Structures are given as structure tokens and as C-alpha cells.
């Protein structure tokens, strides 16, 4: 037992601090959605389409209804009667909650059974008879706009093709001009294949509608509880003050738990229909087949440069596979998200991109995997193009990058496509990564032939991200601006409670945000309770994704703590009988300037604020404040990554030997947590580069619908990560911090691919699409590159 006298060092600000949330998790005492059990709770299960594209002829639920444990069977027809068969997506489209006319991807929701237990619900699914009339499926995005392609979205009035949008950014004429006169132009087609974030906890919800009070409570796997509440109010017509969304402990999100899935809505409908709480938790195949995917960008990139290695311009055409519904859960006004940040970290004269979105018979989504709204695709494109250019010029890829990186004095820097980079020292980060790697030594080693016949490859990527969505002029969700609130209350004894709008899925908010308060108020982080993930207990805000928690809510936390500090100053002035202007904030307390013995800590002032101390006219007592933070700009973290691989040319097997990651995310609040976030993202990068892909056969059958087929990296595929850091504070963030959660996922795949292509140089291989599986690498070595996204003969 720890006594007060033995109390260990307390954490009064930034620095390494073990996580407050760990105590429950290491004991198995977390509360995830599937751990929620309510009295009388029923269980739901979803019948899904076996076809990628088929007309529904009939649905017979009579046998399922007759099952003794079944309480309700809901079909699209039931929902149509409630005007709930379709729901709006976050990209101005609609998505079927349950199919009424056609199914449009394999795994689409067709019927919902509510039963006494989860096994009975599954049994009853087998009793539902659905007659389908199969239709030809659009599987290959490159064929989606063919004149004879089947029209997927005939539910949309007047729709005669599979086209969703055309969108462009940058200056086309200027870019073409630069290209026309450039000494060197390199072009490459590349696919960033469809992947899935696959958090270990699948999606689920427990919905409890109280008929007496009219209150709907939903425990659900959401990264954005407040956004969900508003959407439920808008979609279902329920009054918003009667909706409570609780996002309890979440077993990983990575962007896959941002949007609203049909299963959530069905759990709510099931509870309203049965009058009982209804739990729905999807299984792994359902998770992989139906919840949001990411990427699926077919890109044609071109880069223009001078012969001596000055990069002049980049242009790219993208064919974006959005699946059967345009359900991209991203908040920007741009249909390709932040893709037009593809000029990367370089000083260019011009750039232009054109993106065409198409429907295919696949699940909807697009940005659900730590991509910072398509920055991943952008970084992959530019970093592959820079490597291709280096090969064309016969230059070392590090030297080519060093020659073209933005220089520190160019910040703030406006890119040719309009992004306003806030701060950076890029050459320093790349130099540090090269020093940690021993880059020159590695190149020398690589040049020497090996006895074992393996090939060594060294790959670099340099990334700039824009995170912290976001400024109102560019971003909103269904018209809701992306400002986040914070509320801070200091109790009389100096202990505090901070309420925030964002929600942790493992990022450690309960610790990091307490540290921000500690830093601002000089009270121990241990004394700050962080409340989050419950719309009834927290201020409004749009949630955690796109690395926005620290840039937006972290800023709100710092600002609200400063408000409290200013309130405390007035109390201190009254208590010390001096004017407020005579006080200075030093060492975590207000003290009299020139008389440091006279001062009060926040804890002392909290008690005084609640006491009968006479305060100046118009000053209320107590010590609390609220604040809403409107981010003036995104924050722009960056980093330099170097990957070292070994490739066995006989088998095509790739082994990642080393991975060096230098990240600059501005001021680090808790370096331990930051490093953990980077480790996780690096593993994602290795996984995507080497293993993960969601491929389909010609009928639209999903070929990655379990963890036996969709391969994720284990401890054996991952090296021991080597990290370095530089710190370039964000000039517009109150504590100089930038987001970091998605940096490594965004930045690392290109480094791995560049390393493998570097190793394959003796074979004349220019490019291989991810994932670089043994089969794909071996085929490339033998001059027979495979398409990685399709299994079509």
C-alpha cells in the first residue's frame, strides 16, 4: 500500500509517464462494447449477401420468425416502412441499411434477426430464404466506366453509369508547361491496393431504447460519439437530447470506427421494435467484408526534373474505387480528401492532380486506415516517383531528396496545391535518419556481393502530413464545423476533472490530456481525471481520427486550463491582497513579483475559490472553465524513414532487417506514448507493403475475408524499430504540438517498397505494386508482374 509519505514522484507536465488506463487493461477489466451486459438484453445478427451484385426477388422470413428464441426479424421492407431503409453517408450519397432492391457487394446487409442469445440469432439466419437473381459484377475499377458496364446504382434517379465524381487540384496549364520543357520526365502506373484496418475488436453496438423516457442509449464502437449522436438525430428523427452515445473502451479504431454502419442502426431499430436492449457484434468476416476499407487508388504519376536533379513538377491521374456506395468518412470539401498534398516535402514549381471516383461491387469506404484522409496515397505516390527519378538520373535517392527538400527558412510554406505548411526542418530530420542508419556504410555494404545470394535493399521515404481537422473554411461533417470543446473543473481540494470531446481507442488520452492540464496548472497529472467517450458527460466535438486529438482537443485542453489559471489569478490577487498585475506565474503557482515567498498554488487557490474569501465585484467563485477550440490551420508533422530489407531472389521472400524512423511531431507531451504510436504505424506500413491486400475474384467474391486470407504482420515480420526525433514546434498550436497517430502508417509503406525495388535493381525491376508478397516479387523478377488486386484469369 502506498502511503502519502511514500508517494512517488508526481508528474507535473510533459514527459514520460506510465498510462493511467493500464491498470484496468492488464487485469482484464476493460469494458469493451461486447463486455456490456444489460438485464433482458437480446442479441442481433445480420444476414448478408453471398453475391456481389444481384437482384432480390423475394425474402421469406417465416421460418426464422417461428424459431422459439427469435423476437424479431427485420428486412429492408420493414425499414422502408420506417423510412430507414437508406441512410445518408458522409460523402453526400446514400447507403442501404438493409437491401431492398438489389445487393451491391458481397457481405451487404439483407436482414436482421433479434433473438434471445447470439447462437440462436445465428441459427435463425439460416432459416431465412432469399431468392436472388445474380447480375454481372463490376470488380475491376478500370472497367467501371466502360459503356457496357452494368449500372450498380440504378437506385439513383437517372443514373446510367458508375461515375461518382471528377475532381482536380493545382494548376493544370502551368504544370503542363513545366512538363513540356523539362529535361527529364518519368512516369509510372501504380496501385495502392484496397486494405482494411482490422482492429482486433470488431464493430458492435448495444442499443437500449427506454420507451417511458424516450431516451436512446447506445454503447458503440465509435471514434466520434458526438458526431454519431447528431447523425442519429438527423437520420432517425430522434430528439438529440434524448440520445446518449457511449463509446466505452475501444479495441483499436484506426479510422474503421468513424462512420455509421448498418449494424448500429439495426441494433437501435431492434431495441425500439422489441422494447429490450439489443446487442450486435459482428464477426471477423463481417468486419473485413462490410466495414470501411481504405485506399484502392489506381494512380498514374509523372515527375519532371532537370538533368542535374532539381524536381520541377508532379502530376497525377487517379482512378478511385469507392465501392458500391460513396461512403468515404472524411470531413473535407474535397472528394479525394487531402490527396492533393501529394507534392510532399519538396519545393516544386507546379503540380496538378485529377481524380475520378467510380462505383464498383465492393464494400463502401475509402479512408478507414490511418491515412489522414488520403495523405497515405499521396506520400506513397511522391516517394515512389522520387525514387524512380533517382534511378533515371543515376543519383542516390537520399541525395536527390536532400537537394529538393523544403528548407527551414521557407516556412510557413504554401504548396502549389494550396496547403499552408506551418513549420519544419526537413534536411535535419533526413540527416538524422541517415546518421542512425549509417547510410553511407549501408550503401558500401550493399555494393559488396553476399555469400548467401540474398539481395540488400535500402529504401527512404520522407513525408509531410496535414493533421488536425480542421479549419472551418475547408472542413465540416454534414455542416458541422470541426471545433472541439473542453471543460475543466478544479475541485476544492485541488483535484480536477477534464471533460473532452475526443475519444481514445488506445492513444492514451486519459494520461496525455491530464499531462497537458498538469503542465498548464502545476497540479500533478495523477490528480486530473479525464472524462471522455460519453455524450452526456462531455462537450461537443467531432472525435478522434486523422491524428486530430492533440492538434484540436489538446489545444482546447491547454486553452481551458489557461482560462482556469487566469481565474485563479484573480483569486490569488484577492487572497494575497495585491493587484492581479503584481502577480507572476512561476513554478506552478501565482506569486507576487519580486516577493516569491508570497504565492499560492492552484490547489490552494481552488479551496480559496470555494471559500468565503471576498472576491472582486463581478467575479464568480469556484474554479472552472469551458472552451471551444477552432483550429486555425492543420498541423504538419513530418519525418524521414529508412528501411533495410533482404530479398531472396530464389523465392521472392522479403525480410525487413532494419527500420529507422525519425519523426517530428512538434512538442511531445508524453514521449513514451508518441513512440508507441509510431511503432504501431510502422508495423502497419510493413504489413501493407508486404502482406495486406483485399483482392476479389471476377464474380466479386472477397478473397481476404478472414485472418487466414488477409495477412497481418506478427512479431516475426516486424524488426526492432529504431526511432529518432527532432522537435519543430507548431507555431499556431498553444503548446506547439502536432498530431502523430497516423504519421508512421502514412510514411512507412513507401520506404519498404523503395527498399525492395532497390534490392531488385540488378533485375531491372522498376516497380512492383503492393503487397510485395513472395509470389509478386518472384514474378516481377521473372518479368511477369501480377495484378495484386484481382484474381482474374
Amino acid at each position: 500500500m502506498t502511503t502519502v509519505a511514500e508517494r512517488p514522484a508526481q508528474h507535473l507536465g510533459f514527459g514520460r509517464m506510465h498510462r493511467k488506463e493500464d491498470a484496468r487493461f492488464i487485469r482484464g477489466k476493460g469494458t469493451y462494447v461486447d463486455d456490456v451486459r444489460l438485464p433482458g438484453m437480446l442479441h442481433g445478427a445480420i444476414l448478408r449477401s453471398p453475391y456481389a451484385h444481384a437482384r432480390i426477388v423475394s425474402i421469406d422470413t417465416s421460418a426464422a420468425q417461428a424459431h422459439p428464441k427469435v423476437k424479431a426479424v427485420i428486412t429492408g421492407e420493414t425499414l422502408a416502412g420506417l423510412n430507414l431503409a437508406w441512410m445518408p453517408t458522409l460523402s453526400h450519397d446514400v447507403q442501404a441499411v438493409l437491401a431492398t432492391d438489389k445487393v451491391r457487394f458481397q457481405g451487404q446487409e439483407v436482414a436482421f434477426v433479434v433473438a434471445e442469445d447470439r447462437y440462436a440469432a445465428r441459427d435463425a439466419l439460416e432459416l431465412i430464404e432469399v431468392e436472388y437473381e445474380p447480375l454481372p459484377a463490376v470488380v475491376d475499377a478500370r472497367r467501371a466506366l466502360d459503356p457496357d458496364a452494368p449500372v450498380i446504382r440504378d437506385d439513383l434517379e437517372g443514373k446510367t453509369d458508375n461515375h461518382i465524381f471528377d475532381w482536380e487540384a493545382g494548376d493544370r496549364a502551368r504544370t503542363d508547361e513545366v512538363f513540356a520543357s523539362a529535361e527529364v520526365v518519368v512516369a509510372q502506373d501504380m496501385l495502392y491496393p484496397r486494405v482494411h484496418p482490422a482492429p482486433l475488436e470488431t464493430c458492435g453496438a448495444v442499443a437500449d431504447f427506454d420507451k417511458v423516457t424516450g431516451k436512446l442509449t447506445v454503447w458503440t464502437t465509435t471514434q466520434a460519439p458526438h458526431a454519431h449522436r447528431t447523425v442519429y438525430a438527423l437520420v432517425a428523427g430522434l430528439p438529440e437530447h434524448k440520445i446518449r452515445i457511449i463509446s466505452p473502451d475501444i479495441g483499436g479504431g484506426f479510422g474503421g470506427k468513424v462512420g455509421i454502419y448498418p449494424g448500429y442502426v439495426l441494433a437501435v431499430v431492434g431495441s425500439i421494435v422489441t422494447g429490450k436492449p439489443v446487442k450486435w457484434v459482428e464477426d471477423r468476416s463481417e468486419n473485413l467484408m462490410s466495414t470501411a476499407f481504405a485506399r484502392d487508388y489506381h494512380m498514374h504519376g509523372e515527375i519532371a526534373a532537370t538533368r542535374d536533379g532539381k524536381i520541377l513538377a508532379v502530376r497525377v491521374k487517379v482512378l478511385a474505387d469507392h465501392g458500391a456506395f460513396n461512403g468515404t468518412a472524411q470531413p473535407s470539401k474535397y472528394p479525394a480528401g487531402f490527396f492533393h498534398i501529394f507534392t510532399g516535402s519538396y519545393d516544386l514549381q507546379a503540380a496538378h492532380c485529377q481524380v475520378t471516383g467510380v462505383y464498383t461491387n465492393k464494400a463502401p469506404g475509402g479512408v478507414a486506415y490511418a491515412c489522414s484522409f488520403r495523405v497515405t496515397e499521396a506520400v506513397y505516390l511522391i516517394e515512389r516517383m522520387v525514387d524512380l527519378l533517382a534511378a533515371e538520373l543515376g543519383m542516390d535517392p537520399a541525395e536527390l531528396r536532400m537537394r529538393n527538400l523544403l528548407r527551414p527558412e521557407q516556412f510557413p510554406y504554401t504548396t502549389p496545391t494550396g496547403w499552408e505548411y506551418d513549420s519544419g526542418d526537413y534536411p535535419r530530420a533526413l540527416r538524422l535518419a541517415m546518421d542512425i542508419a549509417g547510410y553511407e556504410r549501408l550503401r558500401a555494404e550493399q555494393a559488396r556481393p553476399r555469400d548467401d545470394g540474398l539481395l540488400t535493399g535500402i529504401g527512404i521515404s520522407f513525408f509531410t502530413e496535414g493533421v488536425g481537422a480542421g479549419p472551418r473554411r475547408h472542413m465540416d461533417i454534414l455542416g458541422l464545423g470541426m471545433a472541439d470543446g473542453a471543460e475543466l473543473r478544479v475541485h476544492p481540494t485541488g483535484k480536477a476533472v477534464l471533460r473532452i470531446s475526443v475519444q481514445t481507442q488506445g492513444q492514451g488520452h486519459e494520461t496525455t490530456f491530464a499531462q497537458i492540464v498538469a503542465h498548464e496548472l502545476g497540479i500533478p497529472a495523477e490528480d486530473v481525471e479525464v472524462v471522455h467517450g460519453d455524450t452526456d458527460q462531455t462537450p461537443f466535438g467531432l472525435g478522434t481520427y486523422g491524428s486530430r486529438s492533440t492538434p484540436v482537443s489538446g489545444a482546447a485542453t491547454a486553452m481551458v486550463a489557461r482560462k482556469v489559471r487566469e481565474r485563479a489569478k484573480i483569486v490569488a490577487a484577492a487572497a494575497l491582497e495585491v493587484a492581479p498585475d503584481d502577480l507572476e506565474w512561476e513554478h506552478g503557482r501565482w506569486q507576487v513579483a519580486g516577493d516569491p515567498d508570497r504565492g499560492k498554488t492552484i490547489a490552494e487557490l481552488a479551496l480559496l475559490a470555494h471559500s468565503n474569501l471576498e472576491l472582486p465585484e463581478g467575479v464568480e467563485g469556484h474554479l472552472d472553465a469551458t472552451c471551444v477550440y477552432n483550429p486555425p490551420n492543420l498541423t504538419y508533422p513530418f519525418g524521414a524513414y529508412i528501411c533495410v530489407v533482404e530479398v531472396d531472389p530464389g523465392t521472392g521472400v522479403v525480410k525487413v532487417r532494419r527500420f529507422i524512423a525519425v519523426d517530428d511531431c512538434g512538442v511531445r507531451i508524453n514521449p513514451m506514448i508518441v513512440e508507441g504510436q509510431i511503432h504501431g504505424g510502422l508495423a502497419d506500413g510493413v504489413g501493407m507493403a508486404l502482406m495486406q491486400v483485399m483482392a476479389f475474384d471476377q464474380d466479386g467474391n472477397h478473397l481476404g475475408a478472414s485472418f487466414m486470407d488477409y495477412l497481418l504482420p506478427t512479431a516475426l515480420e516486424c524488426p526492432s524499430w529504431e526511432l529518432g526525433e527532432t522537435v519543430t514546434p507548431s507555431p499556431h498550436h498553444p503548446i506547439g504540438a502536432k498530431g502523430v497517430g497516423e504519421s508512421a502508417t502514412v510514411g512507412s509503406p513507401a520506404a519498404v517498397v523503395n527498399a525492395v525495388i532497390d534490392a531488385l535493381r540488378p533485375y531491372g525491376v522498376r516497380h512492383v505494386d503492393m503487397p510485395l508478397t513472395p509470389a509478386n516479387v518472384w514474378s516481377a523478377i521473372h518479368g511477369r508482374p501480377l495484378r495484386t488486386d484481382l484474381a482474374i484469369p
Partner: protein
Amino acid sequence: MTMRITVTVNGVEQTREVEPRLLLTHFLRDELGLTGTHWGCDTSNCGTCVVWLEGTPVKSCTVLAVQADGRSVRTVEGLETDAGLDPVQQGFVECHGLQCGFCTPGMLMTARWLLDHNPDPSEQEIREAISGQLCRCTGYENIVRAIRWAAEHPAGSVTAESAEPAAEQPTVPAQATPADAAVEEVRA
């Protein structure tokens, strides 16, 4: 049809009437309320459901509850004793071996088994031991370190060497041994 089974879970005999098809993970979670054991994939790939059956780690999503009849099961809830946390639990806190916490119980159970059979495992041996389990947050680095920490601290004591360097914590009050408050708190 149901069957009557008796399973000794974390040292306590539990008797229930269950369907023969009931998975052990659902028996633990839904029948006994031991929700520390998770379910993640159905195909024995992810390992969030790892528990011990008769002293050996198994994936409880691929074991029927009736197969555990008359046998012993140990779950994450059985790691902590009156003497305190298991060193592997402390190691995960010390080394930030968890983020979302979903894989953690399964990882802890495998880690404890590994150290019982190999008290001084190499990094490679640790990676192989946990290679049947997935973590989507940590990139495994700190899980490996956490298990090494537990190997090096078999008594689980929090020592000065394991504590974070004081220099990295601004304005640390002048107090005795720098130890970690989170661990102290969970041990208390």
C-alpha cells in the same frame, strides 16, 4: 440439448449447463462474466482469446466449453494474486506494452507461460512465443520489451532502474525514490 460441465477456473469450481457447441471463450465471457478474455477472429489467428487449459495456452475460440469439463482454466483475471500483480502485468505497464488493451490479456497469458518454461528468453524467443497472436497497436516492440522486463524482474519489484529518468520529467518534486505512480497505484 445441454450438458452439465464443471470447470475449475482460476482455482474456483464452476458448474453450468451448456450447449455442446458453446465455445470456451463464450463460456468464460457470457456464463462466468470473465470478460477479460476476448474474442477477435474465429480462425485461431489473432490470439485475443488465449487462456490456459490444464496449464497450456490455448485459443479459447477454438475449444468447446465441454472439452474443458473436469479440467482447469486460467484466465487473465487469475494472474494477480494477494501478493500483487504478476511481473508480466507490471512489465506491460513499465514498457508501454499495450495501447487499446484488446490483445493484452492473451499476450499476458502467453508471456507468463513462456517465462514459466524459459525464464530468460531472448528477443527472438519472445517474438516466436507471441507470433500466434496479433497486436494492431504496438508494432510488438514494447510487448517484447515488457516480457523481457518481467524476465529481469521475477519478483516484479519496481526498482529505480526501471523507473523513467527523472531528467525527462520537468519540475519533479523533491521526493524520495522516483517510481512510477501508475504501477504504485495498481499495486496498492
